[in-house]
Every structure is written in C-alpha cells, then in structure tokens.
C-alpha cells in the first residue's frame, strides 16, 4: 500500500491511476484532491442541493475506487469520474421524481407543448456581459428549470453528449431528449432576457 518513490503531487493523473490500481491509497487521495471540486460542481449543478451534492460526490469517489480496474484511459480520469457522478445524480433524480407529484406545468412541459407558445427572443440577452456575470446569470436561469430540462441541457451543452447517449443515460427516447432540450433552450432564452430586463428596471 505504500509507494516510497512516487512523488504524488507532481505525478500525472495517468501515473496516479496506475499506482492507485496497485493499491496506493495516497495516489488515489491525490486524484480526489485534484478533481473533487469538478465532481462536486457537476453533482451540485444537477441536484441543486449542497448536502446531496457532497454525498453524491463522495459516493462517486468510492465507486471510482472500486471500479478503477475498469478504467482503461479511453477518456481522461476527470471525464470518467464525471460520468460516474452523473449516473449517481440521475439515479437520485429518478428517486426524487418517484416521490413527488407532477404539477400540471411539468406535465405540459413533458408533453412538449409549452415551448411552441413562447415568442421568439429576438435580441441577444447576454451581449456585452462579462464572463463572470454571464455565468452567474446562467446559473440563476438553470436553477429555474425542472430537473429533467436542466439535466438534458447540462449533458448536451456542458458534457458534450449526443442525443443518443443522453437518451441512454436518462432512460428515455431520443424524441423526449429533443423535446426536453428544445424546451430547456427556449426557456433559458426567456429567463436570460428577463434577467436583463430586471437589471434595467
């Protein structure tokens, strides 16, 4: 379990993964330290609850350790860990959905009819905004979407997953993914425009 020669802080992710596969816990700790914020951030963006996000990211790291032998380096270690935490978040959101009663609005959104009635936003609501300010507004707007719409948007826009892959992970049809993504984008356009209007007021 000890690695006397390896200088963990300066070692690459690949080297640390190799050492961790051989049982070097310190190597795994270094990987946790490097990627913990990213993994937590993804969990938080999906579940929007600090405590749940901490628990889910912790669970992801334990699973990461258990499945480390399966990691072949096809993607980066950070991407591989992000996929694990996304799957855990999706399970969590499914559990939540089973427990809650669907509102009429959510059902309408799921049916894909609401977005057709929204007028097109013609101006660019984020023009000339500083990057930090823009990110803040995006976060505010994301917080107002339903879990389903936020998730599909995150997976497509921030994780670069294709429709087919999102459908597989969310256990729904490609048509549903397209509908949810369309609604999420249209709603984001409206929310971002509203945030700009509020600022002027």
């Amino acid at each position: 379990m000890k690695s006397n020669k390896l200088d963990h802080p300066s070692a690459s992710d690949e080297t640390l993964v190799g050492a961790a596969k051989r049982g070097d816990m310190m190597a795994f700790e270094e990987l946790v330290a490097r990627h913990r914020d990213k993994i937590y951030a993804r969990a938080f963006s999906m579940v929007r609850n600090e405590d749940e996000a901490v628990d889910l990211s912790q669970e992801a790291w334990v699973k990461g350790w258990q499945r480390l032998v399966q990691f072949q380096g096809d993607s980066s270690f950070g991407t591989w860990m992000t996929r694990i935490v996304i799957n855990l978040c999706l399970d969590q959101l499914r559990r939540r959905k089973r427990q809650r009663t669907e509102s009429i609005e959510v059902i309408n959104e799921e049916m894909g009819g609401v977005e057709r009635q929204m007028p097109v936003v013609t101006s660019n609501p984020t023009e000339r905004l500083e990057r930090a300010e823009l990110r803040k507004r995006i976060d505010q707007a994301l917080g107002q979407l339903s879990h389903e719409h936020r998730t599909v948007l995150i997976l497509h826009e921030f994780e670069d997953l294709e429709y087919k892959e999102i459908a597989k992970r969310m256990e729904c049809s490609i048509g549903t993914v397209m509908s949810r993504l369309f609604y999420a984008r249209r709603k984001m356009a409206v929310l971002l425009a509203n945030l700009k209007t509020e600022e002027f007021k």
Partner: protein
Amino acid sequence: MSTHDSQLKIQAFLDDEMSARDAAEMEGLIANDAEARALLAELRNTNAALAAGEVECRLPETREFFWSKIEREISREMPVAAHVPKMPWLGWLRRRWLPVSSSAAVLTCAAAVLVSHPRHGALESGEMELASDEVGSYVFRDQKQQMTMVWLYDRNAEAALARPTSMVSSGRESDLE
C-alpha cells in the same frame, strides 16, 4: 415552420444531429422561412451564452475531512479476513473488552496531550497506538479550526463503523457529524 416536429428539426440541424442530405434540405427551408431563421438565431444565441460555462463551485469541505470519509467507506467495503479464535471465550473477551479498553487508552492519551498542549493542536505531534488489530481509527486534523477528531471503531462489527465509537476534539465543536 410552426409544427413542433419542424422546430425540433431546426434544433437537430443546429446540433449537427442530421444526415448530410437532411441538413442540406433543412438549410434550404431555413433560407426561405423568416420564422425558422428567427428561431435558429434564438437557439444559437442561447448556445453562445451557455458556452461561457458554469459558475465555479468548490466542495465545501476540507481536503482532509472529505478524504477521511471516502477512506472510511472504502475500508468498510474491503473484505475483512476471517478470524477464528482458538479459544471462543478469548474471542468474546477481545471483541467485548479490547475495543473498550483501547478506546479508554486512546482517550486517556488524547486527554493527556490536550492538557499539556491545549493551544497547539493536541494530536499534531503526539502518537497513539492501538493495542488491538480489531480496533481501527481515523484521525482528522483541521489546522484552520485548530481541531483534531479521532474515530475509533470495531473492525469486526460493521454496524459500529457507521458511527463514531468515541470522539476526541480540541478547539471548537465541529460540524462534521
């Protein structure tokens, strides 16, 4: 371009999720439809905004504490080697009394260090040794909070892993429970 299906096709065109043939056809349709062009422009603006990324978010726990929880979970999942005592009554005695006596010993050591160095992080320079292999411990040190916590647990009793057997803390009460 008012049907939902055609709107989704515009989106698929934007996301490059169409065959080359369908994309060429869609390009022609968009060129001749102002409504479709407006919708495509809105979707592009939203994508451009999202390209700015997400707000930076940091895990609200220290590296040491977060790792101590992961390490504990990993240890819990690891198989414990079967151990059959030669004398059953000795096994019972070890199971029941050694963790307690070890805990007491550790508490005594920790208390001694706390008394002798109350302001400099009690367990920072001290060393503790557990008398039994059946008792495990986790130590978490938060320099900022000037606080040290020691978890003791019975390796044979999985239920005991779930909660601290005893806890020693110097400095302020923690929010680690």
